[in-house]
């Protein structure tokens, strides 16, 4: 069997021609990041699974939407996942906060967070996870992509359909929100 191509455009071209090995390769390569993104942004494993499945179904049905000049294939897939998660949020009316909410930043004190040193690792990660889930969606997405998945600002911007500067700004604010929330939990010395 011919090994699947590594170039993303060629990979998609092969997929559009019905090359099952190419599809399997793409799925193996990207299902993890798409699932983790959907999981962290939605906060629900079942939703994340449905979203991941729908992302790849969309690629099966039409893989001509990817434009390599706009970003990586991972960013493209995460962009689809993000739209699907948002749609589910809208359906369930579970959007955490409106787009331009300042509530988080203004409510939280500007404190140095020592919680990361004070708590044992497991507890600290549990609190951090909750704090991430409580972030407004656009900030949560920036944290998941840039901090947890270590994606570049450019790729994250392609996935989130915004400018890299906006990603940087959202990430900065998200970090402040996380610090504030962890600080308010009384974990700050």
């Amino acid at each position, binding site marked *: 069997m011919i090994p699947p191509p590594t170039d993303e455009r060629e990979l998609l071209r092969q997929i559009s021609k019905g090359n099952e090995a190419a599809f399997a390769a793409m799925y193996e390569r990207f299902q993890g990041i798409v699932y983790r993104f959907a999981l962290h942004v939605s906060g629900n*494993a079942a939703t994340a699974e449905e979203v991941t499945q729908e992302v790849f179904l969309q690629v099966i049905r039409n893989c001509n939407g990817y434009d390599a000049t706009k970003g990586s294939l991972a960013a493209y897939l995460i962009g689809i996942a993000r739209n699907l998660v948002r749609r589910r949020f809208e359906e369930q009316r579970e959007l955490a906060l409106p787009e331009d909410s300042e509530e988080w930043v203004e409510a939280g004190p500007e404190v140095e967070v020592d919680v990361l040193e004070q708590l044992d690792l497991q507890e600290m*990660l549990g609190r*951090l996870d909750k704090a991430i889930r409580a972030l407004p969606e656009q900030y949560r997405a920036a944290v998941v992509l840039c901090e947890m998945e270590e994606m570049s600002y450019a790729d994250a911007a392609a996935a989130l359909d915004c400018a890299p500067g906006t990603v940087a700004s959202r990430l900065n604010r998200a970090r402040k929100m996380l610090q504030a929330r962890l600080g308010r939990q009384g974990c700050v010395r």
Partner: protein
Amino acid sequence: MNTEDKLSQALRELASRSSHQLSPAVGAMLKLEFHRHHARRRRARITVVAALLVLAAAPFLLRRSLLAPRAASDANTRSSITSAVPESAALGRGWSASEDSGFITLPIYDPAIPVEGARLVRLQMPGSALSLVGLPVRQDAADRQFVADVLLAQDGTPFALRLVNQ
């Protein structure tokens, strides 16, 4: 390590410890759907190609189906004419070299033009008329009446005849 770095490290640690895994059933379902989707596409492509071929061949097929009965009729007619014309009678224009037909094609008959719906009529006609259409009639029999079978085209045009033995 400052707080910013610690937060980043904690976030990466959280990402790496994520215990949730995508169900293998999702991958299996997607592979199946991929297979189905492309099978449907292949079928659709084949259908389109077949339809295009039919469309491309339609004028030819239509012409052929329209001409086939006429050609068959023409062939039958010609066959009956030529087969009825005895070789000994093969004289002049329009005569056929066939063995056992008594029919003689008339000068108006054009083998290139298909004959449709030919009819056979039996007529009595003078020897002089038969002579005009090319039958070898002796001069002294010009006034004599002969019985002949005449083949008429659909529009009534005679295109072949034969003498009936009396």
